[in-house]
């Protein structure tokens, strides 16, 4: 009898003692896969009442994109519908709320939706241009870096205009805007006219290092998104100070050695040639004898194929190939020199990572110029950057000549 009693008691314990304080049903979780942050327009609302200091400050408008799993499978592609509501068949739901801190807004949203926002799966954070220009990047990033749910691999982008619009685009081929933008950013290696993806961890390290940096820029037109060019942030107060267009970004990628593939076009004898770059390497050397005029030499080695050729050029001829090589090199030099010129003269912010190069290879000089590298004295804008390009044609394709 005693044994029976004891076994019943143990059996009961099995149900009473086991459990989980942090129990979270997966159905009750709202998986957030993207976030967009805008500034709230200034309200000159003189209500006269006492306002706390926080309420007087800037306010953010945060949009989260939630996954709606039920509509994800078998639902329509979601194209053609606009607005933020969970319309029939749409696999995502955008919620927007306003507040002074990201954390508080996230809490507010929990009150508005049946599913508590769960941030572990955020893949994309879009910041509006206005917010970036006002220098709030570092403030809004704090929550995402600090929060234990977040992972450092979420991609960060700056939108042209309102960030919320980015999460509302109608994607093709993908069901959700965020996933669409993610695959866009992975395709960038194909044309190199925007930056390789920058993630939250990178931004955190830029902010800690206190250098100038760039973030990919996303542009929404006619409800379609495209990643084009980059936004420049300065080193003094991490404010966005300007943008680079596509060809400038390409030039910058050549210098930092991030070009995987690109297609420069130029004319030979008035006929168009498109050169397909298969790989490019860059190597920096510096002459630091005069710290007021540091001389950088960027050597870019490019390999590639003839991609497209108009007219009657015959490629069996070695001299034609070397002309193509020469013209390609000229074209790349033109692109890179233009971006160097623009950055050094106009923005004076070292986004080429030349400072990092100095730190790594010429540490003594770096210690002298470190404090005023691209601010104050601005040794960066005084330095000379010389680009040398060497191009090798590897293949000419399957045809020697198209027309007689």
């Amino acid at each position, binding site marked *: 009898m005693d044994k029976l009693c004891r076994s019943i008691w143990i059996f009961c314990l099995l149900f009473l003692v086991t459990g989980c*304080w*942090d129990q979270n049903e997966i159905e009750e979780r709202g998986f957030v896969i993207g976030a967009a942050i805008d500034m709230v327009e200034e309200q000159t609302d003189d209500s006269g009442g006492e306002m706390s200091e926080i309420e007087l400050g800037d306010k953010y408008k945060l949009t989260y994109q939630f996954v709606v799993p039920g509509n994800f499978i078998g639902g329509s592609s979601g194209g053609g519908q606009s607005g933020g509501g969970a319309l029939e068949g749409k696999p995502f739901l955008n919620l927007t709320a306003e507040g002074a801190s990201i954390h508080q807004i996230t809490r507010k949203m929990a009150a508005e939706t049946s599913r508590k926002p769960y941030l*572990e*799966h955020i893949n994309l954070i879009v910041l509006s241009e206005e917010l970036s220009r006002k220098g709030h990047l570092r403030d809004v990033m704090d929550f995402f870096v600090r929060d*234990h749910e977040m*992972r*450092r*691999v979420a991609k960060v982008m700056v939108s042209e205009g309102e960030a919320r619009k980015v999460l509302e685009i109608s994607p093709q081929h993908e069901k959700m805007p965020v996933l669409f933008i993610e695959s866009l950013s992975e395709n960038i290696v194909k044309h190199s006219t925007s930056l390789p993806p920058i993630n939250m*961890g990178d931004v*955190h*390290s830029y902010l*800690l*290092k206190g250098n100038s940096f760039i973030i990919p820029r996303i542009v929404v037109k006619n409800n379609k998104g495209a990643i084009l060019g980059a936004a420049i942030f300065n080193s003094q107060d991490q404010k966005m100070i300007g943008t680079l267009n596509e060809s400038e970004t390409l030039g910058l990628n050549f210098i930092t050695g991030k070009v995987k593939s690109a297609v420069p076009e130029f004319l030979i004898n008035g006929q168009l040639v498109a050169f397909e770059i298969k790989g490019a390497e860059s190597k920096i050397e510096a002459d630091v004898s005069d710290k007021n005029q540091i001389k950088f030499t960027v050597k870019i080695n490019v390999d590639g194929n003839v991609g497209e050729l108009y007219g009657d050029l015959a490629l069996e001829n070695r001299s034609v190939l070397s002309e193509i090589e020469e013209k390609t090199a000229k074209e790349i030099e033109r692109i890179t020199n233009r971006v160097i010129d623009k950055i050094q003269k106009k923005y004076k912010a070292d986004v080429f990572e030349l400072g*990092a190069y100095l*730190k*790594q*290879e010429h*540490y003594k000089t770096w210690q002298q110029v470190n404090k005023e590298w691209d601010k104050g004295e601005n040794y960066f804008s005084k330095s000379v950057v010389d680009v040398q390009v060497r191009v090798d044609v590897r293949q000419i394709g399957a045809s020697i000549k198209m027309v007689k």
Partner: protein
Amino acid sequence: MKSFEYGDSEVGRKEVLAGVANMVIGFGVLTLPRTVANATHSIDGWISISLGGLSVIFFAGVLAKLISRFPKKNLHEFTSLIINKPIATILTFLFASYMMLFICYEMRVVAEISKLYLFDQTPTEVICFVFFLVTIYAVSGPSTVILRLNLLFMPIILFIIFLLIVMNIGFFEFKTTKPFFQTGWSGILRGSKETIFSFLGFETLLFYNSFINAPKNTVKFTIMGMSIPLLLYLLVFVFVVGVFGVEVAENTLYPTAELAKRVEIPGGFFERFESVFFTIWVVTLFSTASMAFDVTLLAFTSIFKKIKRMTFIFFLSPLIYIIAMSPQNFAETSIFGEWISYLGIGFSMFMPLLLLVIAMMRGVKGNG
């Protein structure tokens, strides 16, 4: 026929190796990259880690030399032989109190970090309580069981940490580790001071000596056991700096945990490596805490021979729990930990050295 190997209450050299390594690897893995990077501001922290590690290994060797001089005897017994009984009793009592504080700190830290990364809603007190209950269960049995458990855990822990490294190879950038050799000596030394704290724990051997059946090999296997954490710490540090850069390493609370979160397996199939990492990490802390508790009990029972082990468990457990819960916040816990580390340096490095010197001068040896 060979006799049944694990039937006795003795442990062999493999258990010594795993026990030492497991005791040392603990909380330090998570914070070490930050504290070292804070002192050196560059990849040169590896010099600090090697320097600190090697000096601790030297002292571990001293301790092993001391205990292998007195086979099958614990701190209380051989100190009585070396000096005299009253001093042995005082030293053992202080040592037991230190070990007890060590468990408190260990438990508190497990609870804090588990709360931060794993249990958002569960109160720290509850996490701590559950962890402690398991520890109490572990120490209720004989000590050899805990020592043998280490042998079981060791390969799993090593596997997970190596997996963590391997999965981050793709993110490792050689460029970010430059420049080399730019930190001054003062920075390197400050870094190695931080490292020493993460290498403490081998002092448990002072009591586990009574179970070791092959005293000849103790020195060799203690040093081997100590080199495992040294290698792990070096690898983890270099990877944290290579993946994140020094600036991020300096400013992240638990850089190694972030390394685990960084893991991404293509295809998005398996994204949460950190949960596996944390599980295993809690296991290492469990073995550390239970060994520390076990040694506390061994120490107390060696002084008060008439009182049973279970009685001590019943009286000490509430006390340990209350002390563990007394720091109010993160800052206080850190200060608490720092004080314990200083005590640890005294008990694991200077006390054995002193005892060994006296023993050698007086020519005292175990077994007469």
